[in-house]
């Protein structure tokens, strides 16, 4: 026999051999496709998720950067306004006019109000409303001044009731204008004052463009503690988790591990928790709390040699004569062999206390970021489900000592946690955050004496809210 003949024989027999379509696999494919659609974002496309996270982080950084630049621009505009204010004050004060008409008095009064408002508003410029008032007043005063002629006029501006500031009240401008100057001088001064006012109006327009938000306009007040803040936060969060399992085992158990891998599916998990965060410096925080996490897995076992034995008992009654009844009992056994599919949903639960050190940066009133890391102390671990033992039979997971594949730890000790968080500030106390994280436990979930060591690396995206327990005054 030649090798070629043998090869052709094998090929002809097996190339198109049909083992029968396993329709339960079709169901699994459908299920998996649905799962993939559901968990597209966080679970199944980790690279994509990574790219999205990087993009979001980049965007957040750019936003923060542009906000910082805007703040710088604000400061420049404020400085320009102050310059204008001084120019304006000088130019207006040089107009020594005597105004006898009511209208003129009013306009002078307006002018004084405007002057006072400028003094206050350039300091803070809190609202658009005050800016508009200032602008209106200037418009009025310009109109009034344009009608001034060369006649001598004396005007005494009355008290300005609109002034709320007591200091301003005490300095009520009594514009007694003595007109002793020539028309040419006045026109020159008006021209100067118009230039100043025009500049001022431009700067006001800049403020009204809406490119400066209220929060960025607000000056950062130093806290009672100086740069050391006194923030105390409470954080609530939840996270969809993606778990990666690793085995360390002797090479003799490679086949067993391969079977474990093929029989157990990762069904992902979740975690949720609450923690307190306290400032321990200007930018450092310490966080501690309680974290509950759950890992879900599915064990599928196919037993191709499943045998089912059915006992059939048939009882017949034969009445041979009155009083002579015969009971006939037939016992037969019916054995059925086939493939049995068994599915168990495993749940591994952990309660931990994380102790996290956090470095926070960014704009505290808009968008801030933090880099977090620290140990995680396991308090309790408990499990429900089944795993295959080395004889490939399913056994229940126990939290016990010993060297069975089913003996798992009730405490997995210390782990490590690392994350990067982005905080969006909703109001002075409330923030929402997104925090991609990674957690790894050094100890395996299985006992040390076991044949294989099974460990988990958990990644996820914590989403939650953070509430500052300290009011602005207490910080």
């Amino acid at each position: 026999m030649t090798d070629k003949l043998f090869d052709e024989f094998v090929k002809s027999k097996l190339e198109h051999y049909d083992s029968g379509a396993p329709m339960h696999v079709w169901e699994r494919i459908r299920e998996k496709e649905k799962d993939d659609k559901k968990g597209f974002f966080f679970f199944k496309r980790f690279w994509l998720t990574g790219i999205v996270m990087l993009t979001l982080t980049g965007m957040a950084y750019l936003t923060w950067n542009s906000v910082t630049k805007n703040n710088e621009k604000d400061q420049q505009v404020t400085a320009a306004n102050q310059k204008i204010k001084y120019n304006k004050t000088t130019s207006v004060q040089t107009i020594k006019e005597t105004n006898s008409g009511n209208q003129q008095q009013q306009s002078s009064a307006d002018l004084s109000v405007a002057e006072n408002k400028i003094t206050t508003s350039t300091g803070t410029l809190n609202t658009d409303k005050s800016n508009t008032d200032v602008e209106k007043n200037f418009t009025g005063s310009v109109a009034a001044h344009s009608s001034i002629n060369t006649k001598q006029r004396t005007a005494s501006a009355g008290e300005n009731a609109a002034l709320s500031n007591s200091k301003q009240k005490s300095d009520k401008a009594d514009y007694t204008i003595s007109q002793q100057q020539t028309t040419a001088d006045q026109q020159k001064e008006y021209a100067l004052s118009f230039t100043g006012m025009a500049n001022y109006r431009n700067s006001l327009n800049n403020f009204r463009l809406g490119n400066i938000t209220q929060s960025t306009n607000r000056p950062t007040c130093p806290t009672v503690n100086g740069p050391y803040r006194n923030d105390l936060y409470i954080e609530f969060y939840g996270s969809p988790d993606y778990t990666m399992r690793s085995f360390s085992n002797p090479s003799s158990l490679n086949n067993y591990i391969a079977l474990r891998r093929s029989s157990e599916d990762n069904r992902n998990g979740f975690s949720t928790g609450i923690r307190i965060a306290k400032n321990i410096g200007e930018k450092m925080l310490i966080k501690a709390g309680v974290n509950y996490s759950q890992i879900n897995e599915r064990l599928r076992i196919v037993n191709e040699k499943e045998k089912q034995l059915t006992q059939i008992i048939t009882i017949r009654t034969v009445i041979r004569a009155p009083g002579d009844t015969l009971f006939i009992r037939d016992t037969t056994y019916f054995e059925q062999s086939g493939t049995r599919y068994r599915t168990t949903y495993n749940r591994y639960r952990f309660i931990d206390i994380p102790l996290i050190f956090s470095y926070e940066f960014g704009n505290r009133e808009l968008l801030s970021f933090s880099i977090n890391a620290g140990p995680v102390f396991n308090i309790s671990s408990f499990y429900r489900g089944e795993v295959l033992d080395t004889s490939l039979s399913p056994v229940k997971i126990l939290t016990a000592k010993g060297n069975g594949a089913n003996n798992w730890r009730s405490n997995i000790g210390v782990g490590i946690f690392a994350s990067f968080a982005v905080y969006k500030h909703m109001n002075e106390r409330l923030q929402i955050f997104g925090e991609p994280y990674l957690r790894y436990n050094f100890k395996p979930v299985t006992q040390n004496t076991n044949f294989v060591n099974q460990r988990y690396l958990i990644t996820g995206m914590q989403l939650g809210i953070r509430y500052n327990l300290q009011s602005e005054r207490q910080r």
Partner: protein
Amino acid sequence: MSKQVSIYKNNVPILILTDHQLIHGCIKNDEQCQRKLFERFAGKMLTVCLRYATDRMEAEDILQDAFIKVYRNISQFKFEGSFEGWVRRIVVNTALKYCQKKRMKFDEVKPDAVNVGGIEPSAYSHLNETELMKLIHHLPDGYKLVFNLHVIEGYSHEEIAGMLNIKDSTSRSQLVKARRFLQNEIFKLQKSVAV
């Protein structure tokens, strides 16, 4: 590509599809078409998977992954050549990935286990597919891979070397040994039947 598939509703055929229409249906994510495609090829592809896998469970996992890949990438099929061949290539590649995960070793089998001697075609002509599958299943991993890829899938030694990251010569020697191993097993089987 001339085969036709019927879609049934309450056991009544409501639509008869050609392969072409079936593929187009799958491209549009039509579940009925996907199911029909699965029904048509899953049996044959399961045989492929069983030849590479260690057990039926793993074979079904490979089949599942391979069909998911087929559905996701079916739009890349150019309608050039056999569609079955295209599906088979995906299945074989998926099976190879599973094998690579297990870090398969191309071990040498003990010389006494290999009885190099020819056997007559009459000795194996009575073998059916199931028996052949069992014999192949008992081959050592390295032998099994090379034998399957070369003899049944028709890949050359150069291609196998590239796929498995081994030398051409290793592929050749593994094939020779696999053949001898199988023939030896058939010989043993023949002897036991004769007794």
